[in-house]
């Protein structure tokens, strides 16, 4: 375990150390004294493990590929933004737009996530043990958002093909987002994600929400409007 202390090292040199690890590396790193700094452990591209001891600012774990990043505290806006693969686990809460635009990998938030969680997600799986805020999964295109708690206003507004599962209450659904039936393949997806996210919940307890596909499909009756 290599320890990197942000009170002694510049953020840039810490990130360069992590980014220098190559494809075959399975090294483990510990980052101490993050003190809310931005852009910690971004742009990683190796199956390494990074543990951040404390709370971070904006964009922690952004653009991650392959790496497993654990944060023992809470994270600021845009955690795991544009993640491609790998796993990011937050023990505390996440601020707005967690997992935004991310293409792959798994983001686990053990506390609550605030507004716009999974906005424009493009393939990432997100599991939130607590609640999520308003406008979550806005224009979400692919991937799965699983919420053990409640969802705020306008969940899944202008949704494309991402799947949303919520165990608690949904304050309101956004435009073109509807409740859908749970089929065996959804139970399977949920079982897998709940297990990977270390979440104590049964797949049968969730409701599924998805796109009604009325908003993003071209309707020939509307041709005159163009």
């Amino acid at each position, binding site marked *: 375990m290599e320890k990197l202390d942000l009170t002694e090292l510049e953020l840039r040199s810490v990130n360069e150390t992590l980014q220098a690890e190559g494809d075959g590396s399975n090294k483990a790193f510990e980052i101490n004294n993050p*003190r*809310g*700094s931005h852009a910690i452990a971004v742009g990683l591209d190796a199956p390494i493990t990074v543990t951040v001891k404390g*709370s971070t*600012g*904006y964009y922690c774990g952004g653009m991650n590929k392959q790496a497993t990043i654990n944060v023992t505290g*809470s994270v*600021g*806006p845009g955690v795991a933004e544009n993640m491609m693969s790998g796993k990011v686990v937050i023990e505390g*809460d996440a*601020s*707005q737009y967690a997992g935004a635009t991310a293409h792959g990998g798994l983001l686990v938030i053990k506390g609550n996530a*605030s*507004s716009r969680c999974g906005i424009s997600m493009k393939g990432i799986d997100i599991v939130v043990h607590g609640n999520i*805020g*308003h*406008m979550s999964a806005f224009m979400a295109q692919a991937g799965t958002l699983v919420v053990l708690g409640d969802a705020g206003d306008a969940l899944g507004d202008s949704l494309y093909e991402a799947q949303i599962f919520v165990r608690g209450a949904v304050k309101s659904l956004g435009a073109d987002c509807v409740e859908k039936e749970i089929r065996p393949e959804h139970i399977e997806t949920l079982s897998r994600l709940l297990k990977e996210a270390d979440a104590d919940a049964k797949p049968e307890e969730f409701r599924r929400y998805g796109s009604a596909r009325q908003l993003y499909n071209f309707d020939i009756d509307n041709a005159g409007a163009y």
Partner: protein
Amino acid sequence: MCGIVGLFLKDKSLEAQLGSMLTEMLVTMSDRGPDSAGIAVYRGADDGHRKITIQSPNPDEDFKDLNKALGCEVERIDTHAIISCTAADADKIRNQINENPNLRVMSAGDAIEIYKEVGLPNSVAERFDIPKLQGTHGIGHTRMATESAVTTLGAHPFSTGPDQCLVHNGSLSNHNSLRRQLAHEGVTVETENDTEVAAAYLTWKMQEGANLGEALEAGIQDLDGFYTFVVGTKNGFGVLRDPIACKPAVLAETDQYVAFGSEYRALVNLPDIENARVWEPEPATVYFWEQ
């Protein structure tokens, strides 16, 4: 962007450090706004004096012999001066100040003092010796200007009523129509700045009998745009975010204090922050504390 910090002390033993704690918090937020910085500090609420903070672009000339002209104590601090007077004399002195167009009133009240200038937080804090100030609560702001020019008067905090102040991260879209509505109610707004309109709106609501919480609640309906506001009164401290809540905000509370930061970074050196309740204030939800 803009950066906001705020500190509302519950533990009197921390009052001597209010200025130094606020300064450190605000300096951490410097890269959220390089244009101007300001701090409001509340102290000496019960000492029986009324305080008027004034500012002048020509302090050497304007503050010279001002104590004799006004017949009261004037303490100059760089471009600012604190005038101490009795409550009975306050209106008279305010009228005398208004006769000199170079003198601008930053704040007035029993406890509030506002210091603000163009420049980064560390330079502003140094000019006014902010770290030495003690007090019960305070609010700081570092500005990235959008809605009005980079001037001392466009800097935050804005004070539009006795012992009241407001800082803002965001921009209001209905400030011109609201300015006209307030004018109908006899409320004048001095600058072109959108934030001052919000401050004047809250002052007006409180003049009409609302408490800070009720005034902020009314603001959710009447103020349109993006905002995270932090508001101070003689004995209160409030936070409000718009319903979209894009502008960041973090609150922390312990038995000793309530603290606000645009980012968690601003809070990391506060005492016992590891064990504080730290949370993101909900959109369109009023938070306020009173002593």
